């Protein structure tokens, strides 16, 4: 459905996107991860024909984004990052305008706008001016305008930013329902979001593609980390921990209280490390206060991948 080949985008001397290639199958939800300034938005803007790439090819729904831009634009729905909407319009009027300008026949404009307002839960605010509704509703209007024409491809730039947890859940459910019928690319900072929504993830950093995989694989590939709180002589514990088989590294965790020394242990092999640590504590008669595996966060994966890349 989407083919990107050797995409390069330069702003003057600065290379915002450096030779990125990927493809998305029909009905797939692809997550786009990356730190700020990585080039996520630039890729999305090329795919939505806002501007052309410097070099390379982007093909959406069988049409080239540069040569056949109008045909691409007919088949996409786009939610830009800051959700720019016409503030002086009523929600209802705005969605009718978007439906019409995306080529909906005049007779069906009202029906389509009503349907998308139903789907996105906008009926309560349909008669309100956009500049008077809350952030959550704004975001939904943004998604609604992307969906109104039932596009084949949806491109959502950080669709859940600035929403409260309940709204986030609603929007995620909405996006999940879209899979299968629509092909979706969404960018985000939040790892759980990716594992909930996306079948596949692409991570980019400084304009380069650094990883492409299923979300669960990304999480397991990254090294396991364990938090330990042990009371006793901190220095001795640290030394002992470092010698346990299966432990790759030990770091002090600074937020813990006076006699409970906190450590973050990086494990090479989870089972071996766990048993080794247990044996070490028993041998030394330390008192174990807490022991748990730390959830792998997006930042960890990032840092991991980015440092690997640079090494």
């Amino acid at each position: 459905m989407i083919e990107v080949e050797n995409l390069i985008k330069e702003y003057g001397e600065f290379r915002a996107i450096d030779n990125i290639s990927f493809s998305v199958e029909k009905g797939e939800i692809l997550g786009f991860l990356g730190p700020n300034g990585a080039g996520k938005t630039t890729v999305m803007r090329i795919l939505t024909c806002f501007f052309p790439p410097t070099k390379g090819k982007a093909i959406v729904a069988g049409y080239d984004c540069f040569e056949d831009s109008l045909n691409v634009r007919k088949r996409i729905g786009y939610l830009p990052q800051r959700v720019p909407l016409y503030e002086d319009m009523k929600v209802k009027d705005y969605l009718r305008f978007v439906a019409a300008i995306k080529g909906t026949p005049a007779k069906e404009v009202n029906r389509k706008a009503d349907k998308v307002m139903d789907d996105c839960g906008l009926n309560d605010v349909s008669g309100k001016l956009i500049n008077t509704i809350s952030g959550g509703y704004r975001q939904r209007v943004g998604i609604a305008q992307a969906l109104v024409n039932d596009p084949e491809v949806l491109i959502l730039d950080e669709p859940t930013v600035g929403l409260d947890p309940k709204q986030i859940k609603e929007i995620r459910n909405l996006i999940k329902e879209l899979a299968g019928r629509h092909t979706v690319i969404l960018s985000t900072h939040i790892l759980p979001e990716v594992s909930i929504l996306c079948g596949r993830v692409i991570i980019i950093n400084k304009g380069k593609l650094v990883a492409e995989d299923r979300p669960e694989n990304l999480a397991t590939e990254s090294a396991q980390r364990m938090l330990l709180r042990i009371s006793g002589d901190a220095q001795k514990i640290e030394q002992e921990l470092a010698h346990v088989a299966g432990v790759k590294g030990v770091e002090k965790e600074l937020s813990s209280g006076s006699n409970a020394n906190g450590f973050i242990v990086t494990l090479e092999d989870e089972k071996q490390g766990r048993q080794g640590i247990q044996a070490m504590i028993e041998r030394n008669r330390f008192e174990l206060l807490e022991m748990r595996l730390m959830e792998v966060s997006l930042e960890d994966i990032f840092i991991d991948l980015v440092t690997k890349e640079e090494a």
Partner: protein
Amino acid sequence: MNIRNVSLILNRELKSYFSSLTVYIVILMFLLMTGYFFYNLLATFSIVSFQAQTDPMLAKQYQLLNINETVIRPLFGSISIILLLMTPLLTMRLFAEEKKTGTIELLLTFPVNDVDVVLGKYLASLAVLLVMIALTATYPILLIALGEPEVVPMLTGYLGLILIGAAAISLGIFTSSLTENQIVSASISFGMLFFFWLISYSVPLVSAGLGQVLSYLSINEHIASLSKGVVDSEDIIYYLCFIVLFLFLTLRSLETKRWR
């Protein structure tokens, strides 16, 4: 070009114009200024013609008794200048605001040609301009009710006002496409319109050939004969070329924005 898209954008822009206070204030100020000129011209005319009744020499000297020459022509001259002052305020938001708020990103990724966007926006501000000009019709209607002015020069005078206003708007939409700051857009428009207005001031300073070119370029030279009742195709062509040129430049400016 797609007529439906043009009219959709035109409609949206018109709603947006009339849902904010700005356009009403611009129209109000425009009417106050033109009304002030009209009042003064008419009052002067009635005083002088009253005096001329008792002093035939005065009447002969100034040929003042022609209401077309003494009220209507100077009035059209003033209205045209006031239009040049006010149109940048109508056009400054057209693209600058969309760039500032980011809505341009959605607008340009809708399946619409750039030409449709430019034309829709242009026609919307042209419609506001026509409303402004139409409201000044009260002045000639008053004159027709009170006196016996010639109607043809008034009609061609209005044609002139519409053309000069339409030209000013095309320049304004171009400067709005250059920046995301409305004040910057309005300032550049003011500057350029002033230049096109006052360019004929340099005519006495340059050679005859260049002088002719300069006075041909001047935006208000061309309504002079129109407000006398003479329709010269050269004048009409000047304004049409002006409009097409700046709409074309607006399109190019949108395109280079895409390339950068």
